[in-house]
């Protein structure tokens, strides 16, 4: 199994940390993992993206142009990455701020209203965990218990009190993800 993922959105949405938690989760179940951020001027405001690869084998290129999954969190990223999903691959997006929804027929499209749900839950910071939950519903490649372990590894100890809330957000994401096509 090899899963090649791009997560793309605005800086500050938790794109990089979501990728990091996913990478840690893979590592917790003995997979090979790589996490490659776009560290350019993008991260200084504007769009941010990260390529995460989970695999049972040694990972070759950490940089890709086609992905099994694209998790898209703003319109700029939709414009850039809808076409980069492999045929038969997955596109998961949050409709908030999306003016041109994806139109491809040869891929699976799912949406999760994570921005809206995070606001309802009273904490916009857990937005990225709702998205992660939605992804794990469609592709349960890492076990939830390993995601929790991943959270423990990637969060500094002083933030470990936030883990239950993150767990709740992941569960919510699992519930509210919708198939589009």
């Amino acid at each position, binding site marked *: 199994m090899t899963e090649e993922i791009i997560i793309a959105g605005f800086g500050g949405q938790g794109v990089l940390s979501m990728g*990091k938690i996913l*990478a840690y989760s893979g*590592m917790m179940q003995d997979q090979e993992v790589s996490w*490659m*951020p776009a*560290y*350019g001027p993008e991260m200084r405001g504007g769009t941010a993206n990260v390529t995460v690869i989970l695999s049972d084998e040694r990972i*070759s290129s950490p*940089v*890709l142009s086609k992905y099994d999954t694209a998790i898209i969190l703003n319109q700029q990223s939709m414009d850039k990455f809808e076409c980069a999903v492999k045929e038969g691959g997955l596109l998961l997006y949050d409709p908030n701020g999306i003016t041109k929804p994806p139109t491809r027929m040869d891929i699976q499209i799912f949406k999760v209203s994570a921005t809206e749900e995070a606001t309802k839950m009273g904490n916009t910071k857990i937005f990225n965990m709702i998205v992660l939950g939605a992804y794990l519903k469609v592709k349960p490649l890492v076990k939830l218990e390993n995601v929790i372990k991943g959270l423990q590894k990637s969060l500094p100890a002083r933030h470990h009190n936030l883990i239950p809330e993150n767990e709740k957000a992941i569960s919510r994401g699992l519930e509210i993800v919708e198939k589009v096509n």
Partner: protein
Amino acid sequence: MKEVKLMKGNEAIAEAAIRAGADGYFGYPITPQSEVLEYLMSQKPHERTGMVVLQAESEVAAINMVYGGAATGKKVMTSSSSPGISLKMEGISYMAGAQLPCLIVNVVRGGPGLGTIQPSQSDYFQATKGGGHGDYRLFVLAPASVQEMADFVKQGFDLAFKYRNPVMILSDGIIGQMMEKVELEEQQPRLTQAEVVKKCPWATTGKTPDRERNIITSLDLEASKQELHNKVLQEKYEKMEEDVRFETFNCDDAEYIFIAYGSVARICQKAIDIARSKGIKVGLLRPITLFPFPSKKVAELATKVKGMMSVEMSAGQMVEDVKLAVNGKIPVEFYGRMGGMIPSPEEIVRALKNQLIGG
């Protein structure tokens, strides 16, 4: 059991330096390698091993601090990215001349000039052919993974002391910024002063009555003596050949060979998967040491395949060494991206088809 961590390449360099028992790190921040200094500062290595970590006032100051530390036989290092490495070049040439061991890490970004902060391999010439003035060479290691970023620190220090020569780890923004699993070595203690005196009889460790004073310098105004010194250096660079390292993938049945180092070698492995799924028999030779360059292996492969393609994030630098080694026996092509652009596996396969296979 060894400890496995998820780390950025830059952080792996820093942690490995502490664990290798380094005595000092002197640096100045620059993207995309600032995490080396940041991580070292956050770890307070002075409390862990007594290692000194210092942010100098400039790159020039940092490399001269390395010179000073190395002159006393200490295990010292610096790191920077392309424009910063250019600033260090005077000091590097002096250290090569004075035969001082040290480790220099270059996490390359696109140039020339301030260029960009995105990854590149355009400092190959600078690293392998000189960079500073004079007839000197660095021993150059090119990591292709976060694991190798960590491993090459200890190996780099060992080679630096073996040859009394600066060693460079030539990395790039991809390997520096990406996170992967890394197995870390156990903490190695720093050498005691008595051990340094024993290991480095040439170092300025304080004159004792039983020996002449040690002088560390790169200056000798007498040309005949300077020529002799140069001969000693050249013999040393030739001897480095015994530590040449490379890796091959899918070369056994290959009709074509990619030659690539560092992150591009990883991208080429993906390109090989794509090409082989289309029936193109292509393999990869990945030089791990860029100086000494694996010329003999390149020449040997040139007798077995129809053509080679050097793939680099540059305008074509390593390809010159490939051509020298192949010596006209088979076609050698080049494909590269510049200025911080990263080639995709698909475009590398296209280049292979268009430039080497034809059609």
